[in-house]
């Protein structure tokens, strides 16, 4: 089927629309509309020329249509819409990486599990279940484990609100163990993963079975004391 040339009509319409960035969209929309009408009329049995005239007549006067479209496509609204749309696209792009990071490294620890810090058999465990909020980070002290090789282990998790007003640091904690003679000065190790949600383990070697308490420090000033003589669940009893 021979498709008529609508260019003259469409140019006349577009000449009335001030917002140039919309010309392309208006052009194709009107053109498709005209072609649909034209094809409809041809299918109804009209000749090419008659169908063309009918389609154009159906659309109306080019100047009138153009002025109506110009009211809808106001340049000021068009510019605001266009600028905001581009800003939105820009922000979506620059948020992609942080969002991916948030979903992966930020919460990677959710799928992790604790691993025993010693190959030695367990002697006792203490379910601590203590929650401590320090600034924007909440610490969950989960459990204390004591092994036959005198390793004492503290298991904990941290949660930091991703939208909190603080620059993110990997917040670990410090563990000091005491017996009846005072602080047991011994080195240890530990790890902590994740940034928003993280799990961590701290271990201290050569801790005697009669150690009395653990002092856990968060940040610079907050600390809690956990009594090691209470709440022990002995492994050989369970």
């Amino acid at each position: 089927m021979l498709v008529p040339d609508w260019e003259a009509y469409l140019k006349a319409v577009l000449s009335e629309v001030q917002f140039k960035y919309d010309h392309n969209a208006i052009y194709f929309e009107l053109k498709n509309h005209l072609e649909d009408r034209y094809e409809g009329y041809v299918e109804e049995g009209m000749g090419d020329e008659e169908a063309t005239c009918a389609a154009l007549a159906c659309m109306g006067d080019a100047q009138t249509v153009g002025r109506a479209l110009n009211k809808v496509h106001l340049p000021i609204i068009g510019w605001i819409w266009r600028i905001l749309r581009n800003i939105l696209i820009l922000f979506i792009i620059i948020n992609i990486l942080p969002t991916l990071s948030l979903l992966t490294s930020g919460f990677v620890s959710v799928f992790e599990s604790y691993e025993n810090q010693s190959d030695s058999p367990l002697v006792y465990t203490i379910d601590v279940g203590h929650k401590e909020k320090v600034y924007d980070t909440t610490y969950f002290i989960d459990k204390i484990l004591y092994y036959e090789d005198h390793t004492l282990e503290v298991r904990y998790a941290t949660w930091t609100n991703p939208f909190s007003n603080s620059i993110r640091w990997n917040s670990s904690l410090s563990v000091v163990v005491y017996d009846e003679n005072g602080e047991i000065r011994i080195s240890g190790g530990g790890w902590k993963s994740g940034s928003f949600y993280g799990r961590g383990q701290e271990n201290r070697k050569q801790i005697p079975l009669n150690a009395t308490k653990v002092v856990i420090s968060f940040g610079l000033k907050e600390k809690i004391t956990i009594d090691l003589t209470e709440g022990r669940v002995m492994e050989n009893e369970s």
Partner: protein
Amino acid sequence: MNRKKQIIIFLTLIPLLFFSFLRHGGYYFSPEGVFYACERGLQYGPSDKIVAEYDLSEGGTLVVGKWGGDLSAIPAERAFGFLWRLKSGGVTGFISCEKVVTGYMVGEGRIIGLAAEEQMKEVYCRVEYGEIPSIQEITMPVDEDGYFTGIWGTQKEEEKYEYIAYIEGRSAGGEVLYRDGMDAYGRYFEDGVERNLDSAGERVYQNGKLKNIPFANLKNTGLATAFAKGKI
């Protein structure tokens, strides 16, 4: 959907996404914003007062705050021309000021510190630097917050062993109210209390490296102080 409705949706989404970008990127509108956010992240503060801000040679600003009797120093740098973020390359953060006069070197030859006693109006500092220490002296006025600062010299890579060997708090009349470290006469003070020179000297000899050098010959070279403080 017409454009006006879309504009309303855009105007709702853009601030949310911008906020998300600021939070996840660690961007703030001022160096002070970076400073307080970093303090929260490091789990101390907020500082009661920002006592000073200094331009850094490689761009950016060092913000110094006072939190109770301690100091906080955090560097910030510009981002995208109008935002600020934490400067890369290390953060001093919390500076414990447990002594009556505490001086701390924050890089670029700058010393910052706090004097805890009101009658102290100036602080004298002797800085030693280099492998075989050279000496640089500096006297700094103390402001109403007890804060003092000064540039002792230009920091060079080969002078990375710089440290404050001796610090002195003085009254308005120049009377020495407090001493810490080894003074020009070889007397060693620890947080205001004079220690027996011999004991300090013996530690030098016990170290073994400089057994044949009389302790008196080490005075004012910086090595004696370093040995006495256990830094070498």
